């Protein structure tokens, strides 16, 4: 009986400490990927707007604001509004033209979405595991309880 209860405790510990933390980590990763996707989409949006505003590439420069930190903005002027540096991963940035950048961003977003889906799958698996263990625990306790009740009915 004691062995059984200690086993139950072990299972509970496993669920709470291993599976739940795993799930948390996976979900955090997923969140990070989604926010990255959002960043890329924002860049894409900006590029599209710039091309809309300047379809023939006549514009020499455009004004913008730079965040200095803590929402203090300073004025800035972009001299070459046809090229953009984009992060390609591992801290590398590559200078691209707008059409190239849009292609790159599409690919990147696709990749990121795939990653996110993988993580989604992983999270679902972990959730399933948690549910499985919990059901198992429930069954074990139920059996234990019923056994007790049987004994009880014998004596009453």
């Amino acid at each position: 009986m004691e062995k059984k209860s200690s086993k139950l405790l072990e299972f509970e510990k496993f669920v709470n400490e291993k599976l739940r933390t795993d799930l948390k980590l996976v979900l955090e990763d997923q969140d990070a990927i989604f926010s990255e996707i959002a960043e890329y989409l924002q860049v894409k949006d900006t590029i599209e707007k710039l091309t809309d505003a300047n379809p023939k590439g006549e514009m020499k420069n455009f004004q913008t604001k730079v965040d200095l930190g803590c929402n203090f903005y300073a004025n800035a002027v972009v001299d070459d509004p046809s090229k953009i540096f984009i992060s390609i991963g591992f801290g590398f940035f590559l200078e691209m033209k707008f059409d190239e950048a849009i292609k790159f961003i599409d690919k990147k977003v696709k990749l990121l979405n795939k990653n996110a889906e993988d993580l989604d799958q992983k999270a679902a698996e972990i959730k399933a595991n948690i549910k499985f263990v919990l059901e198992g625990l429930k069954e074990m306790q139920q059996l234990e309880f019923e056994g007790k009740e049987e004994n009880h009915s014998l004596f009453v």
Partner: protein
Amino acid sequence: MSQNFEKLEHFVRLRTEQENYLKVCDQKLGNWQKFKDDYLTLKSRLETLPHELRYEVMVPISKVAFMTGRLVNTNEILVLLGDNWFVEKSAKQSCDLIDRRLKNIEKFLDDLHKEKKNLQEQINWTENLLQEKGEYVNIEEKLEDEPIKQKSQKEISEEEKREIRRKLQEKALQTSLELENEIKKDFKSLYKPKENKIEKVEENTEEEEEEDVVQIVNNGPNFMSQLEEDIKNLDLGEKFDEDDEQLRNLMSEYDKGINRENNKQIEKDLKKQVKWSNVEESQAKKVENSQYDEDDFEYSESDEEEEEEEDDEIAEEYVKVEPIKIQIKHTANEFIEEQDRRLRLSREKPEINSPADIYSVFNKPKSILKKTSLTPIESDHILPVEHKKVEPKNAEMEKFEPQKAFTGEIVEKNVISIQSHDMGSENKKPVSKFKASKFSQNK
């Protein structure tokens, strides 16, 4: 509760919780520290920003993209105040704004540091406690039997007390009637020298009072046995004599003891006297008495006052007719107070469950002395009722009836509880069998 509180694991848990909270506190502290650092770097940047006209920078589009560009109009800063309200400021003004914000941040940081310090102390405390707990073992002894014994003793004494009180009440009633008659006779034959008898009584009471004072001081744990002996000696057929007086005093004193009032109080009350020798003096005393009553009990003052007024009248008559000194001492004040208290209780709940309750409902004896002062109309009104109710019952009947009523209630409760218990077990049985059969079927 206390046992659980003593357990070691609870303190371990407390410590872990405290450590968790400390972590939260550290996190908050880190956040605010980060804000502070951000503002400080921003301030240093803003201070140096207007030094140059333009800076070659990479203009960030978002986190993942930037474009080449330059900062222009370096003394023109757009500041977000919050809620999407922006304000245009110079670099200097922005610096001032940052200073103001830094003050606020400092305040938060201070508070958090204080909180952390407090928490650290708490953790140290639990740590010490845990160490002590590990080193020493608490020795616990359970006290279960003795309180129960004491309780049963108390219950017995309570019942005994009731018995004694009832007897005493009856006695007091009889004696009061006798005294009343005597005094009436005396009143009628004014010039006959029968006052000697009253004086005798008074002397007796005085002596006994002195005895009482001694008893109060000396009475200890053997008081109960003494009381029991006195109860044995008590005979309903006897007239009002010294023994009864003594017993009554004992009783009152015992009541005092139950109420945990100190001996000083008893002595003080015993010394309370009613003197009718001097009208003014007596009035003064009465005022005092009535005040005392008002303070201690919310008893109907009007009744008392009426009686007292009547007392006055009679006393005055005495004075007018013949200046004889009648000193009657009010020894058993506590007993009367006890009666009053019971009377009040009975008024709130005027059910008559036992003959003893009849007294509390119909009988309102203040004292023997005050009883005599009742006007004939009032006394006729009240007393016959008492006689009717009381006299048909002999002592044995009274002994048993209240007990019957009392035990009857308890038995009823037990019956209900037992029945419910039986019902529960009966309900359980079929369910468990059913389940068992179901279980076997599944197998």
